[in-house]
């Protein structure tokens, strides 16, 4: 393994398992975000998967050590940047987008693929940000069944600074707010995939982080993986759902630790 200075901590990996998202702020070269945003503003057609050929500077985002470190931590060193990527341009005056999970209802309780959402400009609440619902990535819910949901307690709008990359579990519930501003809202979506099973942790794992035991009193304030995985409940769901979440999280954590390969 190469540069390990940007790998995630145990707590960050545990929080990704719990919430289904992780946000990084790579220090991209001065002017790069503005240059990319200007190129996107000028596009007349959506090039689809060819967006990286149309805007080659996007490779600098994918290659940034902070981005590589997060991807290596969660998907292993041999992660694949899939060929599908997309420019999501939300024009000024466009409406909100309802909650959905992408693709069909064949959900994955492991961390095998997720999205990277890159925002080249600051995103304000008026610009129609992506909105996510933490902790919903393990729910197998047909999008049709979400049609009677609007605002959900605990939803998180990705109102972020220019250059932010948000990694979101592929199955995380997401939508957008309306764009009430006078500018286009740009987001480039990338898709990443695991290619090899872990035989050991691929992040900055400290084995002693697992030895502290459960502390019920910490609940949502826990900073260690054992208690984050056990007690975090970002939506405040019922006890029955929370117990199921715990079991799924532990399976997922063990998979990342490489225990399935032992």
């Amino acid at each position, binding site marked *: 393994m190469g540069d390990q200075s940007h790998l995630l901590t145990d707590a960050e990996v545990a929080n990704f398992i719990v919430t289904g998202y992780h946000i990084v702020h790579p220090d991209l070269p001065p002017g790069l975000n503005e240059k990319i945003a200007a190129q996107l503003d000028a596009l007349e057609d959506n090039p689809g998967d060819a967006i990286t050929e149309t805007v080659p500077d996007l490779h600098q985002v994918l290659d940034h050590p902070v981005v590589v470190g997060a991807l290596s931590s969660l998907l292993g060193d041999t992660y694949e940047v899939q060929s599908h990527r997309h420019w999501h341009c939300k024009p000024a005056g466009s*409406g*909100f*987008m*309802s*909650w959905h999970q992408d693709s069909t209802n064949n959900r994955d309780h492991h961390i095998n693929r997720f999205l990277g959402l890159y925002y080249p400009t600051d995103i304000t*609440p*008026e610009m*129609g*940000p992506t*909105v996510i*619902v933490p902790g*919903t990535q*393990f*729910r*197998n*819910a047909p999008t049709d*069944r*979400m049609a*009677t*949901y*609007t*605002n*959900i*307690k*605990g*939803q998180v*709008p990705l*109102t972020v600074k220019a250059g932010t990359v948000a990694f979101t579990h592929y199955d995380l519930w997401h*939508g*957008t*707010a*309306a764009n009430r501003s006078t500018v286009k809202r740009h987001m480039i979506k990338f898709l990443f995939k695991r290619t090899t099973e872990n035989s050991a942790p691929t992040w900055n794992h400290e084995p002693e982080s697992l030895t502290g035991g459960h502390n019920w009193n910490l609940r949502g304030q826990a900073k260690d993986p054992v208690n984050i995985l056990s007690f975090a409940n970002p*939506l*405040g*769901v*019922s006890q029955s*759902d929370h117990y*199921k*979440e715990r*079991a*799924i999280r532990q399976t997922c954590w063990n998979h990342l630790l490489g225990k399935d390969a032992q």
Partner: protein
Amino acid sequence: MTKSPKELPRQRLLYLHARTPSPLSAILGYTPIEPIKGFRPEIVAEEAEWPYQTVHDAVVDGWQIIQFPHLQAPFDDRDLDVVGYEFILQKMEVVDG
């Protein structure tokens, strides 16, 4: 003289997703459907309005439950599906718009 539909009580709907099947449990999701042409509730990026904390709060405010959560579906103790338990409520009122 016959009243126009807008002068008559119309059905306001409220979809509340509660933490448990109890009307007293906390609300996790809130969707109003107003009987106004073109009305669409929106996901918002700002802090959403939560006029009620429980289904019971809405009942106290005059809403009537017209559908309780369906609990007859097969129970799976390993998989998770939708968030919360859906109550549908109505209130018949004369509504502007």
